[in-house]
């Protein structure tokens, strides 16, 4: 009875902290500008099924892709076992699904094989991250916390799987000795390798290992649940909404800013009164483009929280490839850092955010990074969960130009040429058709 109460306490604590953190992230994401993703629902579901559920873009890099699918399948399927652990924990039963007989044996055996797969994949990932010079994983973008975060995730996953297998091994020994409560159930193809570790123990020792591992596993799972939304690992949840809200337009299509269209329409309208006052409004006019994280749409902020820092974008980026400062991954990481900071300040200030004199563009992301982008969309194509770092880059250029009139000199000349000659170069518009005389 006491252990059931303890379990209930542990479970509700885990869920409480998880839910509280989700609430914070939700508020932070919703502090972005409006964006409408309510259209084309069937196409959206199909994209989510293909890209997130089906891992459709992962295997473009075969080693990382296959290993990732192993962990993904393990995570999703082994979670069926969590259901049994929850019921057992709350009601004091033991292996409550054992009545399924051969089906149960099959399930447990497949969980064990998957657990072995997860351990293998995590070890490979750990070696790739720490022992091999893979550029995108050894990059400066990941110095400090991001790199530690990645290693924590891998180590915790190995520990959880090891606990799960040890629990099964001890259980199987207890079953074979006919100990009380230990019904004969399950098939243990992988954990049987661990049995020699525990078979020398007394009956009490075997039970202690089984119970200890059971508690360590579920407590670890709940701790991980609380950890995940503070980590890059949160992609395991956000990948689904993020791919649902994928950009379904051609990747090179930029939005036409509605606020600008209104101005241009007015300019072109011969009946418009050029001296008319703007209609009164309490809202300050929205800035053009993006200077700080709250100027982004909620979809872009969702992307920032979804990014798992794999760096496929950066390794495909032609600017980064040739040694420029720009790293699309860093654009996403900076965006998340900034909106997190604003969220914390807002919370500390009773829900209202007072500008703190810092901005995403300037304090986190520099003009040099923005001007290195060729808008080639390689980062968009490379992202396994359809994030667009390019969208944020181009939106920030809009702020540089339309709010601050800051551009490299040659870009200013290009603008002037288009304005005066209708071409980005200083050729007279009148000579545009001259080539026809040369044919």
């Amino acid at each position: 009875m006491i252990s059931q109460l303890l379990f209930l306490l542990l479970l509700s604590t885990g869920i409480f902290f998880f839910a509280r953190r989700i609430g914070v992230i939700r508020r932070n994401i919703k502090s972005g500008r409006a964006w409408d993703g309510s259209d084309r629902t069937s196409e959206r579901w199909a994209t989510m099924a293909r890209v997130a559920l089906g891992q459709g873009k992962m295997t473009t890099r075969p080693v990382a892709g296959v290993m990732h699918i192993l962990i993904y399948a393990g995570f999703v399927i082994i979670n069926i076992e969590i259901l049994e652990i929850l019921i057992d924990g709350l009601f004091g039963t033991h292996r409550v699904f054992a009545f399924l007989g051969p089906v149960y044996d099959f399930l447990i055996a497949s969980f064990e094989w998957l657990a072995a797969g997860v351990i293998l994949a995590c070890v490979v990932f750990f070696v790739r991250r720490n022992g091999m010079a893979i550029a995108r994983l050894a990059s400066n973008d990941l110095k400090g916390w991001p790199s530690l975060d990645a290693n924590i995730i891998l180590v915790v996953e190995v520990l959880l799987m090891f606990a799960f297998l040890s629990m099964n091994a001890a259980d199987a020994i207890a079953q074979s000795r006919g100990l009380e409560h230990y019904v004969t159930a399950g098939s243990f193809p992988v954990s049987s390798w661990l049995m020699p570790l525990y078979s020398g123990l007394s009956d009490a020792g075997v039970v202690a290992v089984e119970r200890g591992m059971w508690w360590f596993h579920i407590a670890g799972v709940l701790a991980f649940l609380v950890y995940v939304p503070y980590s890059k690992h949160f992609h395991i949840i956000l990948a689904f909404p993020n791919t649902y809200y994928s950009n379904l337009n051609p990747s090179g299509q930029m939005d036409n800013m509605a606020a600008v269209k209104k101005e241009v329409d007015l300019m072109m309208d011969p009946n418009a009164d050029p001296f008319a006052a703007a209609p009164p409004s309490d809202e300050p006019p929205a800035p053009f483009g993006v200077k700080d994280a709250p100027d982004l749409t909620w979809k872009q902020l969702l992307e920032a929280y979804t990014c798992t820092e794999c760096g496929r974008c950066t390794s495909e980026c032609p600017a980064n490839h040739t040694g420029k400062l720009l790293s699309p991954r860093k654009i996403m990481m900076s965006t998340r850092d900034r909106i997190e900071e604003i969220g914390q300040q807002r919370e500390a200030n009773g829900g209202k955010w007072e500008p703190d004199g810092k901005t995403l563009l300037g304090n986190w992301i520099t003009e040099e990074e923005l001007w290195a982008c060729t808008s080639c969309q390689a980062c968009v194509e490379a992202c396994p969960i359809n994030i667009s770092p390019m969208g944020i880059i181009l939106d920030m250029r809009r702020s540089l130009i339309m709010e601050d009139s800051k551009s490299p000199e040659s870009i200013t000349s290009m603008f002037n040429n288009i304005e005066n000659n209708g071409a980005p170069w200083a050729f007279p518009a009148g000579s545009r058709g001259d080539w026809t005389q040369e044919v």
Partner: protein
Amino acid sequence: MAEMTASGQTPDVLFWVGCAGSFDDRAKRITKAIARILHASETSFAVLGQEESCTGDPAKRAGNEFLYQMQAAQNIATLNGYGIKRIITGCPHCFNTLKNEYPELGGTYEVLHHTQFIRELIETGKLRMSGDTPFKGRRITFHDPCYLGRSNGEYLAPREVIAKLDAELLEMRRCKQNAMCCGAGGAQMFKEAESGDREVNHARTDQALETQPEVIATGCPFCNTMMTDGVKNAEQESNVIVKDIAELIAEAADLLDATTT
């Protein structure tokens, strides 16, 4: 276009030449190749001449939405004024802007990249290759323009057209969806690159040269400039030529004597 309208004619297609194709000496040769193909295939077409103006693509991607929308409004007024329905472009940037970004502003047309139109001409028998094309068996690699490929998913048309040359098509390590940019997009063409280890076009040209081509085929005047410069930088200009697909076709097809436009 103005002359045709004045004489009561309506062309089937409008050839949107683009700024590079109008003013840049190298790109003008591509424009002329497209014009020769259009003549040879007896396509009824027109150009806007002085009435054409920059689509606004480089301004938009450099952050100047105002300038872009002013250009768009002006061009859409011109195109709609002539009742244009079908446009072919010699530049993937114009193609992308006209096709994807103008409709919302009131300019909806059927827009084709020139490689798509050339494929159509070959398929409908309006354009025939000579029995022995000058490129038979030659090694050709194709550099995908970002705004044709990744932007608009068109990887096949340029390859199918190259296939008609009887040439050996070599794919680069990074091609189609994963193709690397030449370095000109997003208004980079009009500015110095940021500081780094090397130029994007030199890196991309190296990837092209890895296939040991005789010809690097392009479908964009800006890519053409960048790859030509890259080949010069690698001191390979005596071994490798950079040509637009339109130029290759114009050299290989049974073109009628097209002398004037």
